[in-house]
């Protein structure tokens, strides 16, 4: 079967920027994404918003429409609503598409799967009515759906952004419960002078906080001991702030505790990963061009380590330039020249990133559960106490604990519990995360039915691929 020069998975800022660069130099490109339109998390539905006036979401969002328009103009094969569940290092990709199974082949592959929110395993986090702040954003952007009278709890820029977006739309918010520990402000302060070079970014963040404060929505700071109230449904949030316990009634609780790379794709390919001690998460190990431990597999954007949307665009372009070079479509000096501006811009962003990482460093109390009855594995319903028992029975690493307790074996395949289980084991063993390791993952990366597998089609590249 005719292979594509390059297949890109994920049409967010990283994947779209890469596709544009590749296509403009004549590479034959396929882009696959689960979504019905390009955009990724930040620019979701930015080109066709269901909201009467999308400008209330902010210029960062509406600016995405320009990139989407450019992406949709270039000559590539863009397959929407394609759920990729197998990527082989032989260049074979399998995905679900409207209940069918499809296959394509490529010479180079670029994974741009983006980020997911860090799970926040507080008591009651599995109750219906508890969602993530990112979920609030997804629902707002793609379906103009909001939850009135919700409480928002956690820490980090995305939390403040969605609260501000709700307020601009006139959607009532019960409270914002900020869990950023006070000591984070002190720890981040020494990094502020260098971060000031990125004044516009800094100002954007401060403006959001000011906007929320001015709205009159109750804001609680330094909150600890969070617990979702309710037996069969969320009924509110209990927490401690300024040494007092508070109960806020709400039928929707949105949680947020930062984002981490969406790892399942890079893990299932068995690429080399490393522990990021600033962001407290695993990430794939790549060079400055996103090239992984398997040379024809590159990873770019938040899926390779959290760098934000602007960084993702740059990383996508850099990965594309290197792929063009590997495909003999760009000589070395052309690569060096074209890459220099993005390499410099990425380096210039890093002091700001370091400041944000320190300020919003996830607190252990919210990253790892404390209450013995809190579910760690949502799918197989394994509590902290059950995992501890498994550990005491001799399961000392994530895979052994998985074999013993079934944690991480459910439909989400450890996407939610992976970092929690690894963090708990690291604490219990009093050893670094690198020593403890992570779940071993395999394809398929989602549940499949025989029915679906039986409807099988291959997608050849258009004939002009450079062979």
């Amino acid at each position, binding site marked *: 079967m005719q292979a594509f020069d390059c297949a890109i998975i994920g049409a967010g800022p990283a994947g779209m920027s890469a596709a544009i660069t590749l296509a403009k130099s004549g590479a034959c490109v396929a882009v696959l994404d689960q979504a019905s339109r390009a955009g990724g998390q930040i620019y979701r539905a930015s080109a066709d918003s*269901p909201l009467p006036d999308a400008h209330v979401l902010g210029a960062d969002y509406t600016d995405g429409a320009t990139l989407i328009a450019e992406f949709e103009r270039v000559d590539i094969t863009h397959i929407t609503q394609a759920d990729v569940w197998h990527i082989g290092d032989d260049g074979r990709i399998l995905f679900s598409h409207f209940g069918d199974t499809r296959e394509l082949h490529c010479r180079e592959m670029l994974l741009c799967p983006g980020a997911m929110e860090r799970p926040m395993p507080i008591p009651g986090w599995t109750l219906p009515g508890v969602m993530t702040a990112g979920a609030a954003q997804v629902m707002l952007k793609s379906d*103009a759906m909001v939850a009135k009278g919700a409480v928002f709890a956690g820490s980090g820029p995305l939390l403040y952004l969605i609260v501000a977006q709700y307020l601009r739309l006139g959607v009532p918010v019960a409270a914002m419960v900020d869990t950023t520990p006070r000591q984070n402000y002190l720890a981040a302060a020494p990094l502020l002078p260098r971060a000031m070079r990125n004044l516009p970014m800094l100002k954007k963040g401060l403006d959001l906080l000011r906007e929320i404060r001015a709205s009159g929505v109750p804001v609680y700071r330094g909150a600890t001991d969070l617990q979702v109230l309710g037996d069969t449904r969320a009924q509110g949030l209990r927490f401690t702030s300024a040494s007092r316990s508070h109960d806020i009634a709400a039928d929707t609780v949105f949680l947020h505790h930062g984002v981490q790379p969406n790892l399942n794709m890079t893990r299932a390919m068995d690429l080399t990963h490393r522990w990021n001690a600033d962001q407290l998460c695993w990430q794939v190990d790549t060079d400055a061009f996103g090239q992984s431990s398997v040379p024809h597999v590159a990873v770019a954007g938040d899926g390779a380590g959290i760098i934000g949307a602007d960084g993702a665009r740059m990383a996508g372009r850099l990965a594309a330039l290197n792929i063009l070079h590997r495909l003999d479509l760009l000589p070395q000096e052309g690569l060096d020249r074209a890459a220099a501006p993005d390499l410099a811009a990425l380096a210039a962003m890093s002091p700001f990133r370091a400041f944000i990482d320190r300020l919003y460093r996830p607190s252990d109390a919210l990253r790892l559960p404390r209450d013995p009855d809190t579910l760690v594995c949502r799918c197989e319903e394994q509590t902290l106490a059950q995992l501890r028992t498994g550990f005491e029975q001799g399961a000392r690493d994530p895979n052994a604990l998985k074999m013993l307790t079934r944690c991480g074996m459910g439909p989400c395949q450890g996407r939610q519990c992976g970092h929690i289980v690894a963090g708990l084991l690291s604490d219990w063993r009093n050893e670094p995360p690198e020593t403890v390791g992570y779940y071993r993952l395999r394809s398929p990366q989602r549940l499949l039915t025989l029915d679906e597998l039986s409807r099988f089609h291959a997608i050849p590249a258009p004939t002009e691929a450079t062979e």
Partner: protein
Amino acid sequence: MFQSLRKPERDRVTITVNGHPIEAIAGQSVWSAMALNGQTITRRAALSGEDRSAYCAMGVCFECLVEIDGLPNQQACLRRVTEGMAVTTQEITETTEATNAGL
């Protein structure tokens, strides 16, 4: 309570949720069509059978699994409604799983 702020002009489709016809907007996610019609429960937890509902809305938690046109384990937050689609909340638990075609 979920509420829609959608501008009015899009095409409507009819789908069924657990046999009841509901109106939805073409291209809307199955999850939002369900939630706006008061059906916020998607599946049952594997062991306890407790009610579960969408958590991430972006495809990484698998709490929103429903059956769509007879096919089990479909993510309601990722699938989009189409005319005549039949959605049922998923009743599979550990005890019923063995009889199903899930791989």
